[in-house]
């Protein structure tokens, strides 16, 4: 826990001064706030019996001095001066409080900014392996909700966490000075309150933690329902879904109610303590006052003592609240630290090669598994030679590691053993940016970003001219549908590309990659949602327009790969056969099987 706090504290950075000033100013504000009731109480005492100054601790010297100059009977000027002092104290307190508020806001917002930036930059440097480890949704939560939680706690700590304990101690001291024996009444009450607060949070916290998880699940199931609404409606399962949801929601309700019922003790107990104090002070105080003839205790002390009593209880309340808040955000802090501690598994070499000569690709005895612990290799003993400019088709069933194979080329993952060479040089020796610029890859699970089509395309090449954009889109057969949009290339793509169809999205993604003018172009099942005719046109355009680029096509359809120079058949992470369409038809059982299933198989049933 200490480590976590230390790590997070380093993100305060340039806001250190604000972060230190803020509690200091709060301290000053509290001192002022503590003096004000004390002096006000003395003022009242003074008004009541102007001749008796023995009980006045703070104001006695001032009053004596004043009495000498204005005389003993004229008390109005003295009252005025004391009031002026009080106003000055209040103004000082106002100033300190406001400044503290400003510094605290700067510090906490700045801290959050640094934290977010740190996390974001870290996440940008993550390798695919790192990303796989944290799922994307958990990364997003850490960067948003968790940061907000930690920021809130940070603000609480530099503001209230110092204020409340200080207020507590100071008020107790003052209570003893002002009230003498009377202050013992606090010592009776405080443990009761403290005990209740601790017990309540101890009982309620685990329930809350549990119910929050359930609550997340409930929301997850709503999301599932929204996403699967077509299924729900098709199967006419609205009532069933309602029942399911009601049960889950009711479960959440019960747990929440249970926890809140426990929390409900807090307020009455706090009030009980306050009332107890009030009654006690009034009762014991009057007795003391009368029996001592006003010597042990005076009237002004009544209100002062009561004011301090309130402050003590309030600060206890605040401390318990801070305690609950920070323990809750501690989990957020831990999650954030997990990201900070994560090391990117792919790093630039010491003396990187900054040029990719050509599009040759060689796999030398490559084996790969996704994690050290995994028993099964995703790829084993892959040997493959691809010449610059060749078109290579890769086919194989799901789980045959087609995507894995090609992700080794731009070093999205590192091999477990063996080597992958691009342009004759081991990919691990290249500068990563250089390598990835040279290797264009259209991922299977591809995304477009919110922004216009133009902006999306320029991911491939920031400086591409409009003509180049259109050219790339013509190659990928995207131009035809873009021209059909009212705003053409300025059409706004929604987040996640939800306003274009799957096939359109794929074609835009291909165009985007083409704009990189890569030496190696990899299409990972990138035309699955495109119809056969367009698919064929795209392949034809590529063969004709970028003949020098090495093209690797992963596909489900035989038609997508059958005209490739080399076809690789992967099966269970191993190369099953290599050849061209004709030779494979002769030699490979798997190829023949796929071919017949796609071209003839269905027809034979008739």
């Amino acid at each position, binding site marked *: 826990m200490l480590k976590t706090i230390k790590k997070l504290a380093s993100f305060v950075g340039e806001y250190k001064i604000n972060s230190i000033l803020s509690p200091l100013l709060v301290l000053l504000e509290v001192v002022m706030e503590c003096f004000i009731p004390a002096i*006000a109480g003395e003022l*009242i005492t003074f*008004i009541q019996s102007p001749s008796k100054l023995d009980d006045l601790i703070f104001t006695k010297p001032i009053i004596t001095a004043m009495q000498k100059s204005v005389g003993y009977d004229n008390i109005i000027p003295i*009252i005025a001066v004391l*009031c002026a002092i009080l*106003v000055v104290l*209040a103004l000082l307190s106002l100033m300190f*409080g406001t400044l503290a*508020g*400003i510094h*605290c*806001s700067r510090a906490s917002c*700045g801290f959050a900014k640094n934290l977010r930036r740190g996390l974001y930059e870290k996440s940008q440097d993550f390798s*695919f392996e790192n990303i796989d480890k944290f799922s*994307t949704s958990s990364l997003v939560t850490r960067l*948003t909700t968790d940061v907000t939680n930690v920021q809130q706690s940070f603000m609480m700590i530099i503001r209230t966490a110092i204020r409340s304990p200080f207020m507590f101690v100071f008020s107790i001291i003052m209570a003893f000075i002002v009230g003498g024996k009377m202050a013992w009444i606090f010592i009776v009450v405080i443990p009761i309150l403290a005990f209740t607060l601790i017990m309540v949070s101890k009982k309620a916290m685990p329930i809350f933690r549990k119910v929050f998880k359930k609550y997340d699940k409930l929301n*997850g*199931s709503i999301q*599932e329902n*929204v*996403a*699967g609404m077509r299924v729900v409606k*098709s199967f006419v*399962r609205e009532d069933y879904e*309602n029942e399911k*949801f009601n049960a889950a*929601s009711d479960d959440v*309700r019960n747990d929440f109610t249970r926890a*809140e*019922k426990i929390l*409900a003790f807090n307020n009455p107990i706090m009030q*009980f303590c306050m009332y107890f104090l*009030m*009654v006690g002070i*009034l009762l014991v105080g009057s007795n003391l006052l*009368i029996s001592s*003839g006003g010597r042990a205790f005076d*009237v*002004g002390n*009544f*209100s002062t003592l009561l004011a301090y009593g309130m402050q003590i209880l309030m600060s206890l309340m605040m401390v318990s609240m801070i305690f609950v808040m920070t323990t809750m955000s501690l989990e957020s802090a831990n999650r954030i630290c997990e990201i900070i501690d994560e090391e990117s598994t792919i790093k630039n070499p010491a003396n990187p090669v900054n040029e990719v000569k050509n599009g040759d690709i060689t796999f030398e005895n490559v084996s790969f598994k996704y994690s050290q612990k995994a028993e099964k290799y995703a790829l084993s003993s892959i040997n493959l030679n691809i010449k610059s400019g060749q078109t290579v088709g890769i*086919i*194989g069933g799901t789980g045959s590691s087609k995507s894995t194979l090609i992700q080794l080329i*731009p070093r*999205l993952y590192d091999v477990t053993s063996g080597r992958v060479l691009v342009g004759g040089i081991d990919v691990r020796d290249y500068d990563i940016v250089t390598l*990835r610029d040279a290797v264009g890859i259209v991922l299977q699970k591809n995304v477009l*970003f919110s922004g216009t089509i133009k902006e999306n395309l320029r*991911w491939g090449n920031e400086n591409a001219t409009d003509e180049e954009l259109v050219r790339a889109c013509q190659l990928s057969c995207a131009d035809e*549908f873009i021209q059909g949009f009212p705003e053409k290339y300025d059409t706004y793509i929604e987040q996640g590309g*939800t*306003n274009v169809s799957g096939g*359109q999205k794929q074609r835009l993604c291909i165009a985007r990659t083409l704009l*990189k003018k890569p030496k190696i172009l990899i299409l990972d099942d990138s035309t*699955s949602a495109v*119809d056969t005719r367009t698919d*064929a046109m795209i392949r034809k355009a590529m063969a004709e327009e970028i003949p020098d680029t090495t093209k690797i096509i992963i596909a489900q359809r035989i*038609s997508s790969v059958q005209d490739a120079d080399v076809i690789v058949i992967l099966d269970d992470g191993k190369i099953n056969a290599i050849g061209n369409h004709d030779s494979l038809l002769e030699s490979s059982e798997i190829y023949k099987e796929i071919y017949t*299933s796609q071209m003839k198989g*269905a027809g034979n*049933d008739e």
Partner: protein
Amino acid sequence: MNKTVKNPRQPNMGRPMKKLKKGTFSRFLKLLFSFYKAPFIIVLICICLSAIATACPSIFQKYVIDTVSTALKEMQSGMSTGTALDTYLPPVITAVSILACIYVVGLVSAFIQTRTMAVVTQGSLHKLRTLMFGKMQKLPIKYFDTHARGDIMSHYTNDIDSLRQLISQSIPQIINTVIILCTVTVIMLSMSFWMTLVIVCGVIVMTFVTKKIGGSGAKYFRMQQESLGATEGYVEEMINGQKVVKVFNYEPKSKERFDKLNSKLCSDSTNANIRANTLMPIMNNLGHILYVFLVLIGSLLFTNGVTNVSITGTELFTIGTVVAFLGLSKQFTNNVSQLSQQSNAIIMALAGAERIFELLDEEPEVDNGYVTLVNAKYDENGQLTETNERTGIWAWKHPHSADGTVTYTRLMGDVRLNEVDFGYVEDKIVLHDVSIYAEPGQKIAFVGATGAGKTTITNLINRFYDIADGKIRYDGININKIKKDDLRRSLGVVLQDVNLFTGTVMDNIRYGKLDATDEECIAAAKRANAHSFIEMLPDGYNTMLTGSGSGLSQGQRQLISIARAAVADPPVMILDEATSSIDTRTESIVSAGMDALMQGRTVFVIAHRLSTVKNSDVIMVLDKGRIIERGSHDDLIAQKGKYYQLYTGAFELE
């Protein structure tokens, strides 16, 4: 699926705050009240009691101090301590005892109030949630096609959360505050008009300052919300596209753009927080200054022996009055600042309430159908009659309102579209003059480019959308007359995007027919060729699927969804690109499953791969919303039209 319905360009979060509709608050209160009448009244009474208990001690305080002061004076003029104690202590004890009793009442009501509130709050939220969820189930598919999932979800998360605040804290606190303020005012007036006047002036100044700060605070707060929305939206988008970012070496640019958003967020939230964080010290210290004024004016009144005027009459101004007023002023100002703090929370919560009402007011899917699907059997005369048992024979029960007779038509699966026109938005027709005749047991295939309108046709058959013109008949009955639930029950659907639900594999299969036995589900899985891989799963049919069925491959998930459709056993099936995300080797397994499923059913198939549709009875070639060719595979090949081109095109590229 919202291919044609484009959302207007808008930031996904941080919606601009609209002016609140009038009546939202009272509607919300009415709704809450309707959930929990009695508890609400109890809470209301409790709040009143505890508020009064909090407010009145100052009266007793004043009384005690005045009594003690008198005692002290008497003692100064010679009364012995013993006599003073005897004379003045008993009334003090009586007063304090009364106070203690009031406190006990206050405590008990505070306790009842918070406990009841826990029940009321969570109960109301639960009822609200189920109300929303139930409503959502009734909405037409169009709603889901035109609303972003994130926006729908935020009703259940953000909006409900802000209402939780409103119900559990803001509303009781406001009632509490108002009652305390009223009580305190009455007490003040009963003590002294002059001093009350001072406090009222002070409070006016304080409200003015709060308004000033609060007003600009609200503006910055809104800006902060917008920046937060923009930043979080950006993070979400980039992290989701992280792999693409890496592939394009976009990291530096992405960091740069993030930095800009992040810095803006920082400055906006600093501004907003400064307003929020300085409000309290300002209010507090204004309260202190007011306190000082009270002391000053009070002591002036006291020393000058000014006659005090109050509701109870006129008397000499006492020091007890001053002390009591000091306490009262604290209470008064604290409650005023409470009120100003709550006002922001209330506005936010009401905005949430309004959004929830929008969902609740959404037009539900209308269903004027009266033809229902019933179990049927042939009686001894060979007449089709209704029965309660499951016979495996289904019939459409068609009541005729004109003569009060009922006719039964056997469910066959004959679907006909006659000159159908349709557009997702009124002025943009995407299907033109589409006619399709599917006889029972036939396999009808749709072929065409993306966006040609294939999926749209299936959306019309199960009435996710209603046609603009033309007619669709099911077993000779206009589908507008059929109850939607019964219509959909007679249609099985397997979609490209497989949606499985959290639960076991068995639960997911049983989704197709809730009263299916385990044996039936397993039999369905066997028919769909899913049985063998399910057996291989760690827990077999009891394997839990979480999220969107993670852990299973796309193909395996599709197989489960086919088994789900199989167990429902509908006479008509719609397969919308059911196999396009499955690799071809798996597809052969899946298609074998599907072929078994298609036996004896009317089937509509949409597919990219011509191999999947080749053996269909009729193939429709769609282009830009029109059927341009129709016929069997052999017919179409013979026609040498578009289909022929498509088909041979795949071979030509050798």
